[in-house]
């Protein structure tokens, strides 16, 4: 999760291999499915985690996503890439989960990795002469997650997929089953909201 995802090109470049793995997995080859899990687990986990801000929930949802995908694999016709298809399962599961836990506070954040302090974006943000330049990364992390959780599920999803994971608008549109215009407008609105919530930290 330390690097943003490449755009949809990455997924399409690996498409032939995915197709082969999916075909084998459809014939009950668990090694092939194991490879598919290893290929996409970080991205799926990342999306679910950024949607829930809760590691335990993300862990459960990722497992359930891959279990459901395996059970539905026979019906997968290949109209979309495996990547998009499994993403949709994860997103739907996550949104349903969030509806159920609506009134519970459920933030359980992962630790920041060692590279965070050296990330050029974060170095610039923290070391600039801003009123909150002394803010620790962990404090910013907490505020950032709180602000994310104030967004609607759809807006949070767009931010997680685009600004955090680096997916292209077109790929997000496929995952969310909407057009790219909707993705762009949701992204703009979500950023505005986040900027408002984090104004103290972004001056």
């Amino acid at each position, binding site marked *: 999760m*330390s690097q943003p995802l490449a755009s949809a090109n990455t997924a399409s470049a690996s498409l032939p291999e995915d197709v082969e793995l999916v075909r084998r997995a459809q014939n009950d080859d668990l090694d092939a499915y194991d490879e598919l899990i290893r290929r996409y687990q970080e991205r799926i986990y990342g999306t679910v985690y950024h949607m829930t801000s809760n*590691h335990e929930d993300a*862990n459960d949802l990722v497992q359930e996503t891959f279990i459901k995908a395996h059970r539905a694999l026979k019906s997968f016709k290949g109209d979309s890439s495996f990547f998009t298809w499994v993403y949709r399962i994860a997103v739907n599961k996550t949104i349903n989960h969030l509806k159920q836990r609506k009134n519970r506070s459920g933030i359980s954040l992962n630790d*920041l990795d060692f590279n965070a302090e050296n990330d050029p*974006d*974060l170095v610039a943000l923290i070391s600039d002469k801003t009123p909150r330049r002394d803010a620790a*990364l962990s404090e910013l992390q907490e505020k950032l997650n709180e602000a994310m959780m104030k967004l609607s599920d759809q807006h949070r999803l767009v931010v997680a997929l685009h600004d955090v994971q680096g997916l292209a608008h077109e790929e997000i549109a496929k995952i969310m089953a909407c057009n790219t215009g909707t993705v762009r407008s949701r992204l703009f609105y979500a950023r505005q909201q986040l*900027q408002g919530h984090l104004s103290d930290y972004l001056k």
Partner: protein
Amino acid sequence: MNEEGQNFDRLRQALALKRHETPPPRYFTELPGKILSRLGELEKFEDASLWTRLGRLIGERPIFATGAGVAAGCALLAGIGFIVLQDTAPTGTASMPTLPVHNMAFADAPRGVTDSLSLAPSNSNAGKDLFNSFQPTATPASAILPSRAD
């Protein structure tokens, strides 16, 4: 929706922090094994017979055992109750409530009716024997109804 008009650079810098939130070490090494293990368990569970599945379910979650016990108890009680009710319930019109005859107020009945039901001695001998053995004393309505205390 003028994105250039709004500067989201600093927000995007802050969002970079989210990429550094990582799960515990070895998490992604172990996750595929956990998923495949759960898949294997599910397949075993589905292949098992209904009773085996129920047994496993109860074994894994004691609340199911409690629920099953309560449900069985309720079903048993309901069955017993039903049988008892069927045995004791009177059949047909006999089950209808009976009115106490001696409380009927003949004073309220129409004149013609009271005449025919007159309990006073009659000159007619017709049915005399029958009425000799059955001579109820009619209670006046005033004796039954509560007196009005004005």
